[in-house]
């Protein structure tokens, strides 16, 4: 889901770095399951809360200067882009487990090699082909230091 305030991407598993940096995360474990804090703007939202006003969709060119600081999903990245994985959006435990086994964990650095006909990314020295449903659920922080 996206933050209703700043439209940044939120990790609903509660495991993103943003969430762990929140002081409430450790104090009120249960609370974090119910309230989601946007790592970008700090706004607390309820799961499923509607975005206020017209929804601003992310730019088509995800590495555009204005959007560099905003986390997005992996499928929004262009070929050649590098990014840092921040978390996962709704995924089954089984799929999540497989991704993690390939080293796709928060903090991992990725590079997009190809988008069509299959999504191929490079992580460490491994090239992985992923289904689009998985790619859409991987939340990343585009690396501002790398130009395409």
């Amino acid at each position, binding site marked *: 889901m996206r933050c209703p305030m700043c439209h940044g991407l939120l990790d609903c598993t509660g495991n993103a770095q943003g969430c762990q940096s929140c002081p409430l995360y450790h104090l009120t474990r249960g609370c974090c399951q119910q309230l989601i804090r946007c790592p970008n703007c700090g706004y607390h939202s309820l799961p499923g809360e509607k975005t206020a006003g017209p929804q601003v969709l992310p730019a088509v060119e995800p590495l555009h200067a204005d959007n560099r600081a905003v986390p997005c999903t992996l499928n929004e990245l262009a070929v050649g882009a590098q990014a840092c994985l921040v978390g996962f959006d709704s995924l089954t435990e089984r799929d999540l487990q*497989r991704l993690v086994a390939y080293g796709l*964990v928060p903090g991992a650095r990725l590079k997009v090699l190809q988008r069509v006909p299959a999504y191929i990314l490079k992580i460490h*020295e491994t090239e992985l082909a992923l289904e689009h449903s*998985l790619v859409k659920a991987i939340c990343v922080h585009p690396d501002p230091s790398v130009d395409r």
Partner: protein
Amino acid sequence: MANFLETPQIHVTATKTLALVGQPNVGKSLIFFRLTGHYVSCSNYPGTTVELYRGAAQIRGQSWQVLDTPGVVDLASSAEAEQVTRDLVLFGGADVVLQVADAKNLERTLLLFIQLAELGVPMVLDLNLADERRARGLDYSVAELSQELGVPVVETVATTGEGVEALREAVLEARVPRLKVDYGPQLEPAVLAMEELVQGQARAGHGIEIQTTSSCHCSGHCGGGGVSGNGRGPITGRGLPALLLALSPEHAPGLLGKLDLSPEERKGVQRLSAEVRAKTPRPSYEIALARQKVAARILTKNPPRRTEDRASKARVSGSRSSHWGERLGRWTVHPLWGTLILLGVLYGMYQFVGNLGAQVLVDWLEKTVFGLYVNPALIALTERYLPILFLRDLLVGEYGVLTMALTYSLALILPIITTFFLAFGFLEDSGYFPRLTVMAHRVFRGMGLSGQAVLPMILGLGCDTMATMTTRALETRKERTIATLLLALGVPCSAQLAVLLAMSAAVSPWVLIGVLGSVGLQLIIVGRLAAHLLPGEAAAFVMELPPLRWPQWRNIAAKTRLRLVWYVTEVVPLFVLGTLVLFVLDKIGFLMAVKSGARPVVEGLLGLPAEAATAFVMGFFRRDYGAAGLYQLQQAGGLDAVQVLVSMVVITLFVPCIANFLVILKERGWRTATAIVAFIVPYAVLVGAVVNALVRALLRG
């Protein structure tokens, strides 16, 4: 049941057991070969070594039994091949676990290493593919890594044999790793409590029976971490509780059932798992993250460095070809070039298998060798020495075991699958298959399958019986069932394909397009329906793409030999059995009864002459016989263009041959086999009737 690609029988008098465990595509099977001298399948295609291979090795005078396990990404995975590995590590009674890993992928290596290390088994880490690591200019200290992990670490290049001697020696120095993962405030208490419950759980027992007899004679070499020597030591580590927590609620009871626990202990474990799941919805993720932190900590202490720039990289031996492989590898998954390469590969395979194998070699074997020499000699011999007519019929009659089954399996199928296995081995070892899978994934998604099903489906164009056996490599039971159904339903085997091509060529290319269109449509409709109706979930598609490598001809030849041995011992008997059934049915008049019973359906619904019924019934016993029956009917002028179309659609969709049916029975069980046949027979007739009605209405209109 014999193993797929089973190694020749090895008489193991081993005292100790070494289990090779590792991720797919790291050269595990080649290391196995280097250690044992007995070759087994080695490939880039994940899932080839679905079953277990054994060999014997001599290390400094000691006899070791070596086990090769299916590639594993995560021990808590629900994929069946990975479950085999998990059971083997837990219950196989391995004295030493040798993790074979990719030297250039240290982080992933460590993620699996930590899982294995936590089980408390003595380990050795083999960093294979060291040549690829060097070619990429990656460097790290093996000695420091060994120090950090507390186990011997050896670098090898399995293709050349570099480092293998050191690896042998290292097996004797195996130690229980010194690693501890802190699972955090949510999970740690549960792990500790569960550890108490499963403490002392015997490592060998209910899972896989592996014979390891007498005690250890290694004079303490192996005992760094207290190896018991007889491979029956308890699981002392925290790995088992972590595994029980990480497994999904559907799969955890399976593992729990294999542990030797009292009902109270079992209940305790279940209660702890339920408590953890109530607190953290995805414990496996938390556990993986905790392990990843440990891996990251080890890597921070000994970080892999890029030592060379691109210019000096080119000087490293072998890097030129590796660079070339990288570039070609990229092209093979390119939307345009990848498709062209795919078409080229398929065309090349068709020329090699379909032309050289199915035409030239089959013609020579069937007509010359068997037709002129073998069969006449057999008939003459039996006539001379076997006076009983019944037995003579059984051996060399119309449905004779010798004349029909052996001619069919040896003269017709053997040359096709020999050429197929050669081509298959080449593509397998080159690392092209995962790329082919990626290219095919979208098309196959439409049929309720993942791209991995591309192999059985292509193989099905050669022989459906063989192809059904290879559906074992698919990840979930659901996918295996769908692939088996689609193979039986609409993938014509090479023998049938040749007759179909000849028949349509004699009428009009539109007939062929009509047949392919209707059959293709059925594959999509039935595949989609099956994907919706069958229980179970399809695995999301994640495929690792290993670099392209130039295959070694010796490996391909050795693998082809093993696969042919497997074919002769496992598939040929099925052909013989099928022929026997046919012989009996013919003798009791069953064939004639079916033919006359099917007549109303064939004439009324399908608008075909009554003789076509004979062809359809024969098609069950030998698919090409059925097709050939129709061909003869067409040659005699008994079929018009619409009838050719309808009969071709029906015989393609109609039940598989009897050998294929027996394989379905063996692989999927009688329920699935009966269900598949019970579905296909009326469905084929229904589609034929619809095509018949539609085309006739169109022509009239």
